[in-house]
């Protein structure tokens, strides 16, 4: 650049500068989002939702305080980013999205109460929310009774389907089966030690994993299965058992604060993850932040999204996210799934041409989002998403390196036959 300037404002540099200056007045002609130009409210809102000519209200229902705040903060940030971007592009049906945020406080009854408030008092056209299955189970009757629409971002155990929920995270078979197939193919794994925190998601997931290992993988078996109370911090005994049985793969579904303790103690016990294969479905970039990359480097995680994915959508998403929430933030699978919520809702509403919940629910199957950071997703009839399964290897810097990706989208199957 300096050579060009030396030539004294002749040449490419000068031309660029002049072109740039000429563009300035053109900026004022850039389309700025204006609202109110969409279809008439009476046409798009026949059920009394909070829709005006210029605005539509949605709810955000996550835990900002309490133990789950650690995990749900990312979801809130992603949803707010999506809403801001949609508004910058003109909103939904010409209406700006206004959001009301409520705090579930990591307490399921509070989730139910706030959900009712958002639907009954605030008449939200949709709600982005929940994280744990318990909170979702608590609000599900509310959404079904008052006919709301929930966009639920977390990967979970499946076994559920509702007209009033769109599940933007994976269900168990999407996360588990392809990962197990991959680990047998690439590592020749035959023996598996299953671990988990003691509640429904790890237990159901391990059940599916066991059925797949013993029923579908060649000559494979489960050599141990153990559960630990939520919040437990002492894993030395089971680590010794693992050393005793020397499984080919440790399959770990440990959750929350226990994660940190588990991986630190694993490392301290001398288990080298570059030699001992460990496959997890519960550690995203958010959790590695707390665990410390050096403690988990070498482990494999089965997700549908990693922050390091190399496609244009993702690069834009990551930089927009960091710009809004800070350079040091990390983006995990659930955060991305939460980002999908507002976008999928917008696309569905536009396809249905209405905000009415029944119409949105009917229009959902088949809605595609090509701008998803994970690449491409499509809503299935059962209100889950078609998406790819990916396996990543944890690195020292806390990011995942993609090592495998299914060639096709995996069909969501929340009630898998033969796996129950």
């Amino acid at each position, binding site marked *: 650049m300096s050579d060009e300037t030396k030539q004294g404002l002749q040449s490419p540099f000068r031309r660029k500068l002049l072109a740039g200056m000429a563009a300035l007045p053109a900026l004022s002609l850039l389309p700025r989002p204006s609202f109110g130009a969409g279809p008439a409210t009476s046409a798009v809102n026949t059920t009394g939702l909070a829709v005006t000519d210029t605005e539509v209200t949605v709810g955000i229902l996550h835990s*900002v*305080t*309490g*133990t789950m*705040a*650690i995990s749900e*903060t990312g979801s809130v940030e992603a949803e707010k980013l999506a809403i801001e971007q949609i508004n910058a592009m003109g909103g939904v049906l010409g209406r700006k999205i206004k959001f009301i945020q409520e705090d579930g406080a990591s307490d399921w009854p509070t989730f139910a109460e706030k959900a009712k408030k958002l639907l009954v008092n605030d008449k939200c056209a949709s709600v982005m929310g929940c994280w744990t299955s318990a909170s979702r189970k608590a609000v599900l009757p509310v959404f079904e009774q008052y006919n709301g629409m929930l966009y639920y971002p977390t990967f979970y155990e499946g076994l559920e389907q509702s007209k009033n929920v769109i599940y933007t995270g994976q269900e168990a078979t999407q996360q588990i089966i392809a990962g197990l197939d991959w680990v047998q193919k690439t590592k020749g794994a035959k023996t598996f030690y299953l671990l988990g925190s*003691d509640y429904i998601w790890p237990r159901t997931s391990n059940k599916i994993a066991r059925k797949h290992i013993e029923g579908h993988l060649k000559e494979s078996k489960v050599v141990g*299965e*153990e*559960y*630990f*109370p939520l*919040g*437990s*911090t*002492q*894993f*030395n*005994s*089971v*680590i*010794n*058992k693992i*050393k*005793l049985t020397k499984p080919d793969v440790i399959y770990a579904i440990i959750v929350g*604060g226990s*994660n*940190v*303790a588990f991986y*630190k*103690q694993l*490392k*301290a*016990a*001398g288990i080298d993850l570059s030699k001992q294969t460990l496959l997890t479905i519960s550690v995203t970039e*958010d959790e590695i*932040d*707390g*665990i*410390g990359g*050096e*403690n988990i480097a070498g482990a494999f995680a089965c997700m549908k999204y990693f922050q390091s994915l190399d496609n244009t959508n993702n690069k834009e998403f990551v930089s927009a996210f960091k710009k809004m929430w800070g350079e040091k933030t990390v983006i995990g699978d659930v955060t991305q799934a939460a980002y999908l919520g507002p976008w999928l809702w917008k696309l569905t509403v536009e396809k249905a041409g209405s905000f009415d919940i029944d119409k949105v629910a009917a229009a959902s199957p088949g809605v595609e989002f090509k701008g998803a950071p994970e690449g491409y997703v499509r809503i299935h009839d059962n209100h889950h998403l078609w998406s790819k399964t990916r396996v990543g290897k944890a690195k020292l810097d806390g990011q995942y390196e993609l090592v495998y990706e299914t060639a096709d989208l995996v069909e969501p199957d929340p009630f898998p036959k033969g796996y129950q």
Partner: protein
Amino acid sequence: MFGDYSIGDLGAIFAMQGFAGLILFSVYVLMALGLAIIFGQMGVINMAHGEFMILGAYVTWMTSNAFQHFLPALFPGYFFVAMILAFIASGSLGMLVEWGLIRHLYKRPLDTLLATWGLSLILQQAYRSIFGAREVGVELPEWMMGSVSASDAIQIPINGMFVMALTLLITIGVSYVLFWSRWGRQVRAVVQNRAMAGAVGINTEKVDRYTFGLGCGIAGVAGSAFTMIGSTGPTAGQLYIVDTFLVVVFGGAASLLGTIASAFTISQTQSTLEFFLSGSMAKVITLLAIVGILMMRPQGLFALKVRK
């Protein structure tokens, strides 16, 4: 389950399991010591004990970052500095809390329970507001990670040994202070008969304050040590509080020896059960056993007198 392995293997496993039990024992002692001093010697229940531990953990995290930025050459040794800072931080906070809150409530132990619970809520929210809702990762120096191989099959985690050594040091230190130093004599005098102790010229208020501060300081060091084996977040203190109380109560809060004995019993039971059953069942059985035994002998293992 044992048929597939050689004697050597089995021996190695039992040795490692024994160490796991000892590490758990050290963890419990470290957690409970601070509380035992406060509860046993002063009859004060500090429900915010876990939060004092977490303060120590956060101080360690900040020290770790500071060393990484400003003194990277000295990073391997930062942990010792961090522990001293943790002790000072938690101890000072403890003394402040004693001055502001606890000293008004000495005659009302049940009320200190409630008041310190309120304090724990405030501290948790303060951590959340200052450090963020997410957990922070404390980076350890290389020499503290990994394990030492005593033989081919037996591996002992280094941080486990560190915790054991630390516990030993602190226990000896505390015993020395309480039983052989002049100040320790004053503490015991105040506990036994506050009025007379005051009458012979002991500054009871100061003694109380320093004792509470000592208990909280030890909690801070425990929290600092636990960054090696656990997570650090605003609500992490809640994970430890029930276990800590049970260890103290089971031991018969009147004596430090009781605390140690109780920590040993509980840790060995739990780690043995964990080996043969799953983690969840082991925890439940241990807790049930403790409560059962407490129902039959409520004053704990080593009670000198019945507490009301």
